[in-house]
């Protein structure tokens, strides 16, 4: 039986790590992800896991040690946030290109400068092209569930890619919420044993990892890596279905909330989806045909499936909690790509919100729907791109 408990998002991720019981964890503390590693260090100290914890001196070394241990043939994990993820940037690409199924929680936090410890998605969105599978979560339950699925997906022989499980800093990481933790044994059975591939510690079959590719091979290796991402999508569908059968919580590539007959749709990522659902319920009671498409999987991005899900809606507001300076938000760009081939294109526009932890209250969400109603009534989008909740407009 699963155990219903009230636990912080960080605590839930530490629990997932305890249950996964990886061979090696290499990590460096950074707010707001620190507690994950602190809790995990306690598990190590109490002998509750078999893991070796490497308390490295930087996030760059954390990911370097993770890659080393992974190539050596182990299941490895870490956690980070914000500038820590930025410091890993070089190694993120290397983990992915070397096809190492490293598992990492990213507790989303704004990137400096100015320094800010609160939530936005600038960190993980900045790493969206690194070649990692990226999951996003509305709450601690989803973050935990995604992490339980992560090794099964990343270590699949058709995939062999690192997996990043993202959740909102403080909003989720530091909040206690009610959730269900599954039984250790059941989780371990679901995940199964890790299989090494061309292990560096197999000294009888010496392999060379990280060779120099020139123009005669680099593009072929990249092509193969892209294929692994394509294949990951169906593996994720399979694993999510198996997870649903096993644990009763059903996950698709994205979540559709009141989407079927919706005229006005908001597309959003992570915790704000909770507030949006709350407002949708209220507006639905008033007869408004509003809905939410909540992103779960950002890499690989499910273009065709999302286009299908948005078929028939009349206006789409894409809410980005990060910026791509000089461009539309990262999520908007993908939704826009997804809709390019749509027969009846909905009106589409982009709103940036919540940078550096700026709170979106329920009234702010209502304003978002009010605006989309106006645009829909006028039959055109006034402002393609704008910031919400910013002084000075």
């Amino acid at each position: 039986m699963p155990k219903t408990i009230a636990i912080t998002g960080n605590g839930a991720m530490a629990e997932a790590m305890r249950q996964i019981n990886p061979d090696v964890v290499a990590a460096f503390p950074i707010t707001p992800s620190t507690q994950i590693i602190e809790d995990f260090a306690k598990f190590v100290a109490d002998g509750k896991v078999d893991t070796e914890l490497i308390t490295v001196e930087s996030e760059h070394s954390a990911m370097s040690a993770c890659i080393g241990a992974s190539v050596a043939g182990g299941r490895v994990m870490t956690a980070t946030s914000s500038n820590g993820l930025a410091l890993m940037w070089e190694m993120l690409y290397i983990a992915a290109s070397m096809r190492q199924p490293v598992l990492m929680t990213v507790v989303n936090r704004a990137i400096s400068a100015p320094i800010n410890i609160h939530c936005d998605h600038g960190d993980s969105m900045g790493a969206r092209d690194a070649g990692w599978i990226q999951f996003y979560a509305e709450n601690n339950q989803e973050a935990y569930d995604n992490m339980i699925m992560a090794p099964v997906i990343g270590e699949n022989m058709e995939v062999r890619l690192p997996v990043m499980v993202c959740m909102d800093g403080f909003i989720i990481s530091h909040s206690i919420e009610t959730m269900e933790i599954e039984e250790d044994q059941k989780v371990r059975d679901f995940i199964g044993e890790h299989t090494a591939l061309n292990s560096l510690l197999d000294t009888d079959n010496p392999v060379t990892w990280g060779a120099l590719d020139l123009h005669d091979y680099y593009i072929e290796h990249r092509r193969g890596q892209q294929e692994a991402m394509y294949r990951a999508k169906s593996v994720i569908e399979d694993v999510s279905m198996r997870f649903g059968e096993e644990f009763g919580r059903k996950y698709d590539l994205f979540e559709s909330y009141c989407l079927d007959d919706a005229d006005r749709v908001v597309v959003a990522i992570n915790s704000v989806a909770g507030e949006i659902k709350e407002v949708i319920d209220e507006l639905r009671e008033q007869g408004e045909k509003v809905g939410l498409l909540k992103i779960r999987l950002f890499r690989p991005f499910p273009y065709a499936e999302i286009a299908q899900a948005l078929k028939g809606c009349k206006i789409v507001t894409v809410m980005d909690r990060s910026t791509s300076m000089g461009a539309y938000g990262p999520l908007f760009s993908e939704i826009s790509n997804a809709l390019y081939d749509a027969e009846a294109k909905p009106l589409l526009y982009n709103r940036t919100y919540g940078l550096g932890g700026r709170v979106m209250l329920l009234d702010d969400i209502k304003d978002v729907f009010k605006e989309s109603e106006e645009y829909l009534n006028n039959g055109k989008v006034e402002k393609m791109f704008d910031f919400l909740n910013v002084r000075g407009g």
Partner: protein
Amino acid sequence: MSKYFEIRWHGRGGQGTVTGAKSLAEAVQGTGKHVSAFPDYGPERRGAPLRAFDRFSDEKIRIHTPVLEPDVVMIVDPTLIGTKGLLNGVSDKTIFVVNTEKSPAETRKALGLDGQTLYTVPANSISHRLFKREIPNSAMMGAFARACPDVISLEALLEEAKHIFSHMLAPHLVDKNVEAIQCGYDEVETV
């Protein structure tokens, strides 16, 4: 008014207010309710005024926004009385639970309350008596059970607290804290 039962805690950094809000949520969760608890995070350290929030419900809680219209305001540090923001968003029905040695009448006046229900509890004295230092959380939790028995009964709170504290504290401190809850409950005054 929100469909959730919502609490706003006012305390100071280092007093354990955040832990208090979280412990109360864990206890209420133990009775089968859905809960969430979270602080307002900033760079403030020991001594700075801070807020923490609880949200309880029979159904799944989806929102993460700060509590704007609290059902209960918990004031953990008496020296906060008179500071800004304690009365933000309160209604006639809002219940106040205040850690103070002063009488309910004096406290009501100091806070500038109208008709709201007010409970006072000398949580600092209780804490000094039991722990020889100022950790008013447990007594505040006891006072909460007195103020809002429909949310959690004293019996349930004592039972859950034993369980929660045993994960956090040494055995003798678990007993002391349970005792502090009982004292907090017993020594509440109201008008």
